[in-house]
């Protein structure tokens, strides 16, 4: 990571600080954002490889995976030609770690860590974050948590194998999974990771509340900043609940308590209540920044103001509030009082409304635009398309009777991959869009379009047929679907999904190639290559320490595209075109 960042971060500064203070323990929000990005991309590759192994096993159960034979028994059993067969215990660890890594070490570091750090100060016209040292600490504590999580692959017994949801009692006693230290480390890593996110959240909130440039009222903030602001509030309130639950689980495992163990008077469902009280806001922590970025990109590349700015803002706030009262929809068949199930169905149906409002407003933004299908725009549209499917498939699970059948099947696997894995489209959209400001060079648009087309096709090829499996009753987290008579007619879909997933994974080479090629040899970027309105594009490229030459004054909202006031079809937030503009802007 440091070499690649080193290779070109170097142009940014006049006085040459030491390597350590510049690249490792940097206090600059832009460097910290890059650190989060490189770590997140590295973890994305690890999480992706784990997913490929899971898919191999589901398509061709208990056949040797090429090249896996180097891992010793009992984790992998040797097959011919250096291949290795995945045993059930390892399979459970693979999907547990895949989900854990993707959620906590890919989507959170990149969507919240990278975009939050990079964009909040630049978009609100601040010189840096409110607490630069806390910011640095947030990254390094996060990095330590990643090291702890990865180290669990190398302890006896292997990593955690109780699912990313870590349901007690399975996770609360080593004898139930056969995993001793792997599960301990999983708990500890998530607790440490929570501290990192908490520090980030405090910093984001403080920065947004206190450090907006003159004229940057709350309702002149880009929706990306709004989304990150709301996300930070959710993080601040949700993570302590997870940390408390994890502490109780660790005590049950190591100190002989019985919070979740019935033999000592504990209650297994208490874990689920606490986990999902955190877990459902967590879903919105992941998806809100994607919504914010998508909104900004759709407006910019339609050359048109965002449709219903206030509706967009208030729908995000509504989602954030409602996210606290829907957790029980994960527990309809858990044994929780069925009357509560009815109540949680109502709240869950209600939370679909603000999500629908967002999709319709995105459509409204496209209507009447002058649409430029750039690579970031394509990925943003891909996010909308996936979120549409993921949002609609959620309605099935919200209906309690329907959920009885599809709960814990591939239907839910399809649903949450369309929502959470679909975030990868917003993630790529953001990287392609802000790359020129982040790395001072342009990415290749042709390679980007190839990357988009392949990713979009094979993403859908991998995840859409999972709905069919779910309708057929295919349980999630099973090691070998061919053990079941009723799943035999569906096995061809498993093979189809695996081929799609393998090609989806391979297609990412176009991204990596483009990313690193552009990093070193891309065309030098100008200050505002997309002709966008938000403040980060008014800052010089590369943005110096402190970001702006002078403190920008904000005269209007971020979406004044194709305004009749000027000849160009964009009107930066800090461009002074006379007093009337300042007075009229919302």
């Amino acid at each position: 990571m440091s070499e690649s960042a080193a290779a070109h971060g170097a142009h940014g500064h006049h006085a040459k600080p030491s390597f350590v203070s510049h690249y490792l323990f940097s206090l600059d929000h832009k460097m910290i954002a890059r650190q989060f990005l490189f770590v997140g991309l590295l973890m994305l590759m690890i999480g992706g490889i784990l997913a490929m192994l899971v898919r191999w096993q589901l398509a061709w159960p208990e056949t040797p995976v090429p090249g896996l034979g180097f891992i010793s028994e009992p984790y992998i059993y040797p097959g011919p030609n250096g291949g290795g067969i995945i045993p059930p215990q390892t399979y459970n660890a693979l999907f547990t770690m895949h989900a854990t890594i993707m959620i906590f070490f890919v989507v959170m570091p990149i969507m919240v860590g990278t975009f939050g750090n990079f964009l909040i100060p630049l978009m609100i016209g601040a010189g840096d974050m409110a607490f630069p040292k806390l910011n640095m600490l947030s990254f390094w504590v996060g990095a330590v948590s990643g090291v702890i999580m990865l180290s669990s692959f190398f302890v006896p017994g292997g990593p955690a194998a109780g699912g990313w949801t870590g349901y007690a009692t399975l996770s609360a006693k080593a004898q139930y999974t056969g995993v001793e230290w792997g599960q301990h480390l999983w708990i500890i890593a998530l607790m440490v990771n929570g501290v990192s996110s908490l520090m980030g959240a405090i910093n984001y909130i403080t920065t947004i509340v206190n450090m907006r440039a003159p004229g940057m009222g709350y309702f002149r903030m880009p929706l990306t900043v709004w989304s990150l602001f709301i996300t930070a509030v959710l993080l601040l309130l949700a993570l302590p609940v997870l940390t408390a639950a994890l502490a109780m689980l660790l005590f049950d495992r190591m100190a002989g308590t019985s919070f979740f163990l019935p033999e000592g008077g504990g209650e297994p469902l208490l874990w689920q209540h606490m986990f999902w009280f955190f877990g459902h806001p967590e879903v919105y922590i992941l998806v809100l920044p994607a919504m914010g970025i998508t909104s900004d990109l759709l407006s910019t590349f339609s050359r048109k103001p965002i449709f219903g700015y206030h509706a967009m803002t208030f729908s995000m706030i509504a989602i954030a509030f409602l996210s606290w009262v829907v957790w029980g929809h994960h527990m309809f068949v858990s044994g929780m009082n069925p009357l509560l199930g009815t109540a949680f169905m109502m709240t869950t149906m209600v939370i679909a409304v603000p999500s629908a409002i967002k999709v319709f407003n995105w459509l409204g933004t496209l209507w009447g635009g002058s649409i430029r299908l750039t690579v970031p725009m394509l990925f943003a549209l891909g996010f909308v398309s996936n979120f549409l499917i993921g949002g609609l498939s959620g309605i099935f699970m919200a209906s309690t009777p329907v959920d009885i059948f599809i709960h814990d099947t591939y239907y839910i696997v399809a649903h949450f991959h369309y929502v959470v894995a679909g975030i990868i489209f917003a993630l790529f959209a953001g990287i392609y869009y802000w790359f020129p400001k982040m790395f001072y060079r342009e990415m290749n648009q042709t390679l980007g379009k190839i990357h988009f087309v392949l990713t979009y096709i094979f993403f859908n090829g991998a995840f859409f047929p999972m709905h069919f499996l779910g309708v057929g009753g295919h349980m999630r987290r099973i090691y070998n679907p061919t053990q079941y008579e009723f799943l035999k007619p569906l096995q061809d879909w498993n093979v189809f999904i695996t081929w799609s997933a393998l090609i989806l994974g391979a297609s990412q080479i176009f991204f990596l190639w483009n990313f690193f090629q552009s990093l070193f040899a891309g065309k030098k970027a100008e200050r505002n290559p997309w002709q966008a309105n938000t403040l980060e594009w008014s800052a010089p490229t590369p943005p110096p320490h402190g970001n702006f030459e002078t403190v920008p004054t904000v005269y209007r909202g971020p979406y004044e595209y194709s305004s009749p006031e000027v000849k160009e079809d964009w009107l930066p937030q800090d461009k002074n075109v006379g007093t009337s503009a300042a007075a009229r802007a919302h």
Partner: protein
Amino acid sequence: MMRWLPEDVSTYGHEIDSLFYLIYYITAATFVLVTVLMIWFLIKYRAQPGRRAVYNHGNTTLEIIWTTIPAAILIVLSFMSVSTWAKVKRNIPASDFEIQVTAKQFNWEVVYPGADGKFGSEDDVKFDNDLHVPVNKVVRIHLTASDVIHSFFIPNLRFKQDAVPGRTILTWFEANKPGKYELPCAELCGFGHSGMKGWVNVYTPEDYQKWAAENLAPKPQ
């Protein structure tokens, strides 16, 4: 998509399936509508030289329309779901046919009360993994687990209920077609989760009597 749904052989399954179909039609229509509009807009409003985008910040009437219509549909769906949910999970019908199922790594332990109709007495009969029940008869199950959480799933009966250690959950089904139906565990329960399964054998009343006479009658000492 719905052709993959397994055959329904339960008395309440058709209500679940019709809700499933209803939501499927509503969401499929919404998907097609939004996707067609999106593609149409992308083509119609593509950047062309000399044309400037409409300068428009939104429309309150439209916002109200596309807030209230989805809200109305979703509220109606909720209320339609309430009665089926209550029938399946809340209002357990009376029956003289009761069995106990205890889930454990990695078996379903099935207990019939025997001739005295009481559990925990000497004439209880235990089976591993397989249920034997008569058709058109309410089957009440006292479901629990002895180690970790499992989930008792019978796809053909549209039946699913987690088995939780430390509590016994009363639940029920009524099959309306004789046959042999698979009974997998649907909640991750450890390395043997995959393959933890049994069969639900649904018999005609005559066949059930025959089976019961052979298997449930007190064994001669």
